[in-house]
């Protein structure tokens, strides 16, 4: 089993990864911004736009820790819902002020249109940071936080419309199990979306990327978070992760159909998508 470039047993790997995220949890967002120069926000926005959820969607965000995908999902659904309500009201002509008021009242308590997102993470610290962030930013409706393992999800079969895992599947010890669990908890017709660091095929860019990853990122980790080793692990784990085609094959093996991937930034990041049919 590998932990970055070290060799460890499966149990050791799980524990080491837990410790990595326990120690980086508080500075996770700051580090993401400084390592990717803020570009990770664009990647996550693209993921949610690709998902294009409509109100009433039930999303499971695995390894969702600090809640980035969950908050974006809520924002997206809220704005879609707003537009829906506006369109509905436009169709009603000659309404009295009383009726308009009642319409708004009725739908105010439904600003998300019954959409919900469940954030599941194996690490308590990351969930704690996520909950604090939600409180700070004012997200409360349609959001729940669950402690769980991606390889063994605490949910029933056929529950969710969409399953996302952003920058988390790399840290799962048994990726095949996680994919099988994803298949299990999705409803028929449900969508699997995975946002993850991947393989850069352009040789020049690849060398620059390697140079940046191995020379700069651990230094940033030491200077900003006081933690070199966790960020050394991060860049090593990216190199160890299967490239786009291999991951696509693994997703197909779990039973998903119409599996495809989209490279972002020449393959630095890739979004894999599949459907349970």
């Amino acid at each position, binding site marked *: 089993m*590998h932990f970055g470039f*070290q*060799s460890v047993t499966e149990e050791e790997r799980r524990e080491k990864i837990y410790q990595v995220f326990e120690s980086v949890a508080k500075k996770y967002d700051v580090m993401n911004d400084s390592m990717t120069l803020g570009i990770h926000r664009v990647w996550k926005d693209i993921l949610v736009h690709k998902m294009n959820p409509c109100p009433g969607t039930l999303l499971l965000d695995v390894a969702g820790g600090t809640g980035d995908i969950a908050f974006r999902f809520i924002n997206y659904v809220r704005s879609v819902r707003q537009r829906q309500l506006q369109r509905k009201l436009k169709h009603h002509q000659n309404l009295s002020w009383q009726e308009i008021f009642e319409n708004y009242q009725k739908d105010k308590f439904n600003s998300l249109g019954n959409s919900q997102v469940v954030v599941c993470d194996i690490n308590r610290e990351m969930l704690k940071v996520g909950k604090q962030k939600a409180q700070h930013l004012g997200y409360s409706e349609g959001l729940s936080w669950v402690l769980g393992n991606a390889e063994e999800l605490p949910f029933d079969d056929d529950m969710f419309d969409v399953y996302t895992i952003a920058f988390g599947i790399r840290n799962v010890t048994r990726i095949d199990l996680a994919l099988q669990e994803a298949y299990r908890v999705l409803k028929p017709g449900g969508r699997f979306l995975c946002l993850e660091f991947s393989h850069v095929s352009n040789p020049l860019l690849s060398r620059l990327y390697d140079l940046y990853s191995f020379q700069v990122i651990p230094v940033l980790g030491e200077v*900003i978070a006081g933690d070199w080793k966790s960020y050394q692990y991060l860049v090593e784990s990216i190199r160890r992760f299967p490239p786009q085609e*291999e991951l696509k094959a693994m997703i197909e093996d779990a039973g998903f159909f119409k599996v495809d991937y989209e490279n972002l930034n020449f393959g630095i990041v890739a979004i894999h998508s599949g459907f349970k049919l």
Partner: protein
Amino acid sequence: MRQLLLRALRAGVPLLRAASASPGKCPPPQLLGRPGLSLSRAGPSAAPVPHPLLPAGRARPSHSEPWGRDGRRGEEEEEEELWHQLYPGHIPTSPLQKALLATGSAVMALCDPYRHDMVAVLGETTGCLALPNLRDKMKNHPEGYRILQERPRIRLSTLDMDRLQGLPDGTLGREYVRFLEDNKVSPDTRMPPKFVDNEELAYVIQRYREVHDLMHTLLGMPTNMLGEVVVKWFEAVQTGLPMCVLGAAFGPVRLSTRKLQVLATELVPWAIRSGLNASCVLNIYYEQRWEQPVESLREELGIFPPPAVRV
């Protein structure tokens, strides 16, 4: 020089190979036998292979052969020597990483003076000229040489606090314990070195850090900003470490004008004079001098009595 260049490029070359080879020790069963995917590596072994070029008894490698497994070991084996962990906590770094660390930690230490780890990192990454000098000064002095051989450590576990507290007032041991209590500090909070690429120099910098509190005691300076700056001036003159020089130069930025005045007119001139006059402070085996009165130790070293100002 070539070694250094190779080290800097090292990050690039093997990773391309590593990235194109298949991952990990336990590939999912579905991948075996899949056409078109070559599993050229059997998978990393659990225990690190003893390195043929390293003499037995050298510290063990921290990464087990991540690269060069495809039969290209030959050219990289010599470089791997430099990349092994030389002491517990050692993180080997390339020259570029050291440069980035030095700038980053300098900026961070200025922005947030409570980041003591950044001050430590700055010291380690910029000390490549001053540390060998210090080490040589210690080697050429009988007591310093003994310290290098015996490698004593000042930690709460090695100090007999009760005995030191029982010593008469004015002795080094009693005053040191008083200093620790008054300022609520402990000798165990010193960061172990991480980025020094030589095991002996790592001890030298560790010794310097552990002796820092004793400097405070000898100079009679508390751990507030003003006191720290004064000690930094003294240490800058004594050790020549760039971190001390930078700390001495930029530390006063955060002081009030009144304190700056006291600093400039009385404390700094005294600190510089004492620093120049005193013999190397790392050459004293402090652990064997607890009973010695502070005054006598000051005289022996050549530190002038501190000026009568409130710090």
